[in-house]
């Protein structure tokens, strides 16, 4: 039996590849939508215990968070995908996309749309790599201190999983470099899919 705690370099590489395919697709959609080149990549992926998340994120900084539930068409719910925009990144993103950040509601809804695009792209990537079809629900939005937003998500999954896969994601256009965190909160079934994926590289 695999343990998600002690993944080897190669296994982490495979996970990063899943992240890269996902954000690559999202970058293509965003580029088409905006009519200019947006690039996204996942330089680092980490698997973190929920209790130790405070080592990876600034727990008491205000962030905007977009969360979608991932539904497996065969088995039901598979987990949550959570996109964490640090305050600086949300402003930069909104500025790059809207050109104007004065309307807060507009900024929030832009972030939600990016969350929507990312989660659909991520589901496309898992369909491609794992041949599992996942459907994202429409996004929910929260703005609060980072750990409180995560707290609201993990309380859903506490029974089923203790680990989070953190994709440190970089989004670039010609002028900006923006950092966001894409976090996958898998339930037991989704952890199985991840092991299937890792099985492919062994």
């Amino acid at each position, binding site marked *: 039996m695999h343990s998600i705690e002690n993944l080897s370099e190669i296994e982490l590489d495979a996970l990063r590849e899943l992240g890269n395919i996902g954000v690559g697709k999202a970058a293509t959609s965003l580029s088409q939508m905006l009519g200019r080149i947006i690039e996204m990549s996942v330089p680092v992926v980490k698997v973190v215990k929920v209790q130790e998340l405070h080592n990876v994120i600034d727990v008491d900084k205000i962030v905007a968070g977009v969360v979608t539930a991932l539904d497996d068409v065969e088995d039901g719910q598979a987990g949550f995908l959570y996109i964490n925009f640090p305050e600086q990144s949300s402003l930069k993103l909104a500025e790059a996309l809207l050109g104007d950040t004065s309307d807060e509601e507009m900024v929030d809804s832009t972030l939600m749309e990016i969350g929507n695009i990312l989660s659909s792209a991520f589901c496309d990537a898992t369909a491609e790599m794992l041949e599992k079809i996942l459907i994202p629900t429409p996004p*929910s939005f929260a703005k609060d*201190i980072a*750990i*409180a937003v995560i707290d*609201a998500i*993990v309380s859903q999954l506490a029974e089923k999983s203790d680990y989070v896969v953190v994709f440190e994601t970089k989004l670039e256009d010609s002028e900006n470099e923006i950092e966001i965190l894409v976090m996958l909160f898998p339930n037991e079934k989704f952890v199985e899919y991840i092991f299937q994926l890792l099985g492919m590289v062994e």
Partner: protein
Amino acid sequence: MRNEMLVGIGEFRVAKGAVLKTVGLGSCIGIALYDPAVKVGGLAHVMLPQSNGTKRSAKYADHAVEMMIEAMERLGGKRDRVIAKMAGGAQLFKHMTMDMLRIGDRNVEAISSILDDFGIRLVSKDIGGDQGRTVYFFTSDGRMLVRYSRGGELWI
């Protein structure tokens, strides 16, 4: 704050004199227990109300209360003197499309009845709302400070 101990998500700590702190209660709940006679207190950051027979973990309210009482007894506390305070259970997500994320209310109800089962009196609480909370529990005198993420604070 001096003499501060951090309680992570799904963890609990018990102390005599120290300030117990948990950052970022969203829909989760911070449960504080206190024995005023010996000034021993505990704080837990619980995610779910009921354990349903799984292995013992402080992320479930029923286990957390039991584990805290045991730890407090080792520090000289007596369970029939213990009182409780709680804070949390907010609804952070807007544009709610997932019923599942409305877990706060369910948590509060379940925890109240768990405290009843243990015969522990709930003396004060600060529950609900739409923002996160950071909680400080002063085991030297049993006061609890709730600090909201968008500013403002409350002693309970």
